Each structure stands twice: as C-alpha cells, then as structure tokens.
C-alpha cells in the first residue's frame, strides 16, 4: 500500500503537470470561480481581518480589502492566460525564468516562506480546542497549547500521508466546512453589536506620526495577502475553457470571496473590542467571547474552526509535497511531507508566528512580488507569450532552459534586487518606514515595479538577451 501511494504521487507529480489539451478543459467561469473561492478561504483570513482592524476604521478597511486586493490581483494574475493557453501551470513557465535546476531552488524558497501559514493554522486549532474545553468546563493551561498545535500538524500530515483519495475526501469536506464556519462567524459578528458601532469604528492610531501610515499599511497588507497566492494561482485556471474565464475567475474568486472573509474577520474583531474592551487577533478567542450567551453555537463554531484547520493543514502538506516531488523525483513523498511537518512543528515550538503576523506577510511579499513581476514581464514583454514546451519539459535534444548548469542567474539576480527594493522602503520586523514617499506605492508595489523594470532592461542588453532567450529558434522566431 505504501509503495502504491508513492506511485500515485509520482504519477500526479509527473503527469499532473503536462499540458492539458483544449478539448480536455473542464471548467467554465462559474465553476472555476467557485473552486477558487473555496481555495482562498481559510481561517487565516480572519487573522488578516483582525490585523487590518488594528490599523484602519471600517470604511477604509472595506476599501483597502476589496479594491486593494482586486487592483493587485488584476495586475499580477494577467499571466494566468498563459496557463489557459498552454494548459500548463505557471511553475512550468518559471523554468524559463530560473532554469531547470533553478526552479527546484525556487520551489524550496517558496515553501520556506509560505509554510508559516500552516503554523498559523495549527495555532488557531490549538486556540479553538482550548476555548471549547473552557466552555465545557475543562481548564486547559497554556502549556497545552503547543501539544494541541502539534496534534493539528500531525493529523493534517497523516491525512496527506494517506494520499490522493484521502485528500480528495478532505477537500470535499473542507470547502463546505469553511463556508459553514463563515456563515456562523457572520451571524455571531453581526448580531453581537449594533451595525452603527461597526460602521463608525475607528482604531486608536495615535502612535503613528503620519496619519496616512496605517491606511497605507492596510493596503500593503492586502497587496501582500493576495500576492502570496501567486504560486497556486494557475492550478485551476489551466483547466478553464477560455482565457477570459480563467483570468476573471482568479481575480474575482480571490478578490471578492477572499476579501469578504477578511472583512468578516475584521467585523468579529471590532465586535470583540466593543463587547470586551480589548482587541484580539485570535479568531477562536473572538468567537468564544462573542458567542458566550449561546454555548452550543460557541462550541459548534469553534469545533468547525478547529477541524477546518486540520483539513487546511492536510491539503497544504499534500499539495506542497507533490510540488516538491515534481522537483525532487528521487525523494520519497512520505519523507517530503515529514520534512514539511517538521518545519511547521519547529515554527509551532517557536510560537511567535501570530505575534509577527504582519512581518511574516511583508517578508513573504518581498519574494512573491518580484516573482509575480518576473512572470508578468517575461510573459508579455520578454518571451512575448511564446515558449518551447519541449525545452520546458527537458525532452532530449531541447535544452533552451538549461542556462548555466540548469540555473538562470538573471532570474535570481532580479528576485534579490526586488527583495532589496522592498526592504529598502520598509523594515517588516521593526515596522520602520525608510522612504515615506515610496511607501505611498507600498513595498510590495515598488518591488513589483522595480523587479519588472530591471528584468526588462536585462532583456534589452544584447549579451544578456542572448543568454535569456535561447528558445527563440524553437519558438519559430
């Protein structure tokens, strides 16, 4: 059975990435929109909403959450049309930017910066279970938090270990579960306090010298939040029947549905502050505080939050396990998911991921924004929408994406430059703004524009152009 799972994953890792022919496409706009809506809702959306509520009032929060997200999505998701056209994931296109070996390095970097989300999940699970126990009259001390978080990681990994079938079942259960959680949170949040209290809410931002800084930070947080989806943005659109459908399903699925759940998170954070006098960033604590008068509702919603986190953990471990397997085919899938679980467990032992949530978001965006910019510029302006599929899949006799021993150093140089731009504007750990004027464009926005310009200029330099574009003959140009 064990080797059977490994073979199934091997099949998924290799044949799950080959081009989908036009007649094999299965999704219309509406189906892709629904699937992507499910994909981008997770309980961490509430953490993001609660964080935004510490920065801006409700009206500004609505604007930055919806319009900020849709603006960033409408730009960086444009290359999704390549996935629909070629029927491939963007990770295949990235081979043209980083090289056949370079993409493996990039996959590891992306997982390293993305996996802390799963430590947030584990933290929420532990918090939810502790609150359920509290409501049931069982006091669990804070020392129980870590074992509970590790239990979430272990359970999720166990599901991922059981392979494709278990994950398919988990996904089927997870999306409705998250929607039920969302509905309960909405009911609890909106019935807890008067609507005017939410509408007129304003946080205390007297600590900021420039009154615009918190608003800009909220826009940055939304840019950073949506751009972290770049790695998985093409998995569903590559199966859609039209380029327009694939693109708008991504923009609206994540921009409307995802942002809606962020706003819901903000509403419960505001309601909690209104009723208890303190602002919390922990959705489980907020739900427990708000639904205390109806213990059954409190227990039910917290149970659902807890178990949806196990599901999210399982789907994350599985999808990143497959991603690693497609890069490192000689490694056993089970070893890979064990390594991922070990990484999340270390983060749980550290215990600071929720406290450093905003820093973690911006640090992630430091890498994601240059990554998205490279894809955008490469697709539209450098390779002009054409690649050699034979070289991308490294078929014998096709080596246009081998570059220097499998690595395109220009791609890595541009990523480093983009990160430097972002960090030169804003220190995500200390929260210090270094360049107030550039901060108006947000660190993520500046890193995106800066990386794109540098990469484009590289492609216009004759010697670098020859190095970057070795596939033109194969593309018939």
């Amino acid at each position: 059975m064990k080797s059977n799972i490994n073979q199934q994953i091997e099949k998924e890792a290799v044949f799950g990435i080959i081009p989908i022919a036009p007649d094999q496409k299965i999704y219309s706009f509406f189906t892709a929109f629904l699937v992507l809506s499910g994909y981008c809702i997770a309980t961490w959306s509430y953490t993001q909403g609660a964080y935004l509520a510490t920065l801006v009032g409700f009206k500004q929060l609505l604007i930055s959450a919806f319009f900020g997200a849709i603006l960033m999505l409408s730009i960086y998701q444009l290359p999704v049309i390549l996935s629909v056209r070629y029927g491939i994931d963007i990770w295949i296109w990235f081979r043209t930017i980083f090289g056949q070996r370079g993409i493996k390095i990039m996959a590891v970097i992306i997982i390293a910066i993305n996996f802390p989300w799963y430590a947030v999940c584990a933290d929420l699970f532990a918090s939810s279970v502790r609150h359920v126990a509290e409501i049931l009259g069982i006091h669990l001390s804070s020392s129980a938090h870590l074992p509970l978080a590790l239990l979430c990681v272990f359970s999720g990994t166990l599901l991922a270990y059981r392979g494709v079938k278990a994950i398919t079942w988990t996904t089927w259960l997870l999306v409705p579960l998250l929607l039920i959680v969302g509905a309960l949170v909405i009911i609890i949040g909106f019935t807890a306090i008067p609507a005017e209290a939410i509408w007129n809410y304003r946080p205390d931002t007297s600590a900021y010298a420039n009154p615009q800084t918190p608003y800009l930070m909220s826009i940055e947080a939304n840019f950073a939040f949506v751009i972290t989806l770049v790695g998985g943005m093409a998995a569903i659109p590559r199966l859609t029947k039209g380029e327009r459908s694939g693109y708008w399903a991504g923009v609206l699925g994540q921009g409307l549905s995802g942002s809606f759940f962020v706003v819901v998170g903000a509403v419960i954070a505001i309601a909690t502050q209104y009723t208890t006098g303190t602002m919390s960033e922990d959705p489980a604590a907020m739900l427990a505080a708000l639904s205390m008068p109806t213990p059954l509702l409190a227990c039910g919603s917290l149970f659902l939050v807890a178990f949806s986190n196990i599901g999210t953990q399982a789907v994350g471990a599985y999808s990143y396990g497959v991603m690693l397997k497609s890069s490192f085919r000689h490694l056993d899938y089970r070893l890979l998911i064990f390594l991922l679980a070990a990484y999340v467990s270390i983060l749980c032992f550290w215990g600071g991921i929720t406290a450093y949530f905003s820093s973690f978001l911006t640090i992630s965006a430091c890498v994601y924004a240059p990554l998205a910019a490279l894809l955008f510029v490469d697709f539209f302006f450098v390779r002009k929408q054409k690649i050699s599929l034979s070289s991308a899949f490294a078929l014998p006799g096709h080596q246009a994406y081998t570059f220097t021993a499998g690595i395109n150093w220009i791609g890595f140089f541009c990523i480093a430059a983009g990160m430097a731009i972002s960090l030169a504007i804003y220190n995500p750990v200390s929260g210090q703004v270094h360049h107030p004027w550039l901060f108006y464009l947000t660190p993520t926005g500046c890193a995106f524009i800066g990386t794109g310009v540098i990469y484009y200029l590289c492609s216009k330099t004759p010697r670098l152009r020859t190095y970057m574009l070795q596939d033109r003959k194969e593309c018939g140009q």
Partner: protein
Amino acid sequence: MKSKQFVEQEKMQKEIKAKIVEWEDKEKVSSPLRFQPRDYLITIIVGMICLAMLILGSAL
C-alpha cells in the same frame, strides 16, 4: 544493460513527448478562447477604478 530507472525515465519522456505533440495538434484545431484587446481594456478600467477608490479612501 539499461538500469530500471533509466528505462522508466525514457518511458516517461516518451509519454510526455506524445502529450506535447497531442497538445500541439489539438491546439491548431481548437485553441482556447483568447484574451482579446477588449479584455485588456476592461482590465485597465477595473484597475483604474480600484486605484481611484484607494486614493479616495485616504481622505476618509
């Protein structure tokens, strides 16, 4: 004698090549509905509206 791993790799490459050829043939017959200049225009308008709203939001 070829090793088992080498044979498997060769088999896999043949299958991928066949899939790419199949994709190229089908793409010539029925390519997915393309993103038209009108779609780019709509995207730019949506982007401009979002940007304008973000600027207006700073005055709240």
